[in-house]
């Protein structure tokens, strides 16, 4: 059973490499997108922190900024 699943009548190398390439591409795209998201979010938090209190209050009053700050999830 395991042998048949691995070798697939001699086609195992082709089948497994096609599926491996697909899943590896998914993983790479997911990680790159996640890194970009985290980077932009950290930049946003640090920029907001560097504003003076008056400007920070204006920025924090906007609904989207509140939503960005309240969203702690990385994805």
């Amino acid at each position, binding site marked *: 059973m395991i042998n048949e*699943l691995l070798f697939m*009548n001699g086609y195992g190398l082709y089948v497994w490499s096609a*599926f491996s390439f697909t899943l590896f591409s*998914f993983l790479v795209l997911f990680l790159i997108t996640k890194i970009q998201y985290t980077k932009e979010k950290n930049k946003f938090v640090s920029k907001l922190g560097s504003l003076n209190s008056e400007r920070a209050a204006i920025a924090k009053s906007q609904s*989207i900024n509140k939503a960005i700050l309240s*969203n702690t999830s990385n994805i």
Partner: protein
Amino acid sequence: MFKYLEPGKIFSITSKAPKYVLFLFIIILSIGLTEALVLSPEDYKQSHSVRIMYVHVPAAWISLGIFSSMTLLSVIGYIFKIKNFFLISKSLAPSGLVFNIIALVTGSIWGKPTWGTWWAWDARITSMLILSLFFVMYLVAWRIYENNDKIFKVTTIITILGIINVPIIKYSVDWWNTLHQPASINILSKSSIHTSMLFPLIIMTAAFALFSLLIFLMKYNTELIKIKNKGLDRL
């Protein structure tokens, strides 16, 4: 109704959605992989190599669907001056390109045992390669003209030129004599694929669609934060 279109409301929805989409994607992908690699039967002609179809075909479908959506969004966005449509289109492009590359690479891997060659310059394969070049041009254009008003015009032109290639991809196997087999699945007429193979194909397509949705949401959120970062610079 319109209150849901505010950027804050959109972000509060799109920022929460990825974790649920990721969860659903993992479940559907697990079912799809089990069906595709273990439960589905081998083909009487192609034997087990037919299993490559379960990653090759959904990847090609999704990349074509994404490029068509990008064109529609760009054209409507350009005519009605809706910048958000360009943002959605830009966020769709990376997963479209990756699915296009997956379709080309897995097609090449499938080609070796079935046609005896990794690559052939036939109409279907070449037109898919051309589509990947349009995805690259689109993404490069965003890099070059990101802070320029020309960007909306340039990206719309790229998508319009690229969409001419989509019907060529679809009908290339009917119009020309190609190594690539004709379509086995027809929406309007009876499909020549057996249900035991159609079911895993549908499951894998659903998994791939969920993955492109996941990447789109993450990318769209990144773009929204990028815009807000520029806004903070101006404060």
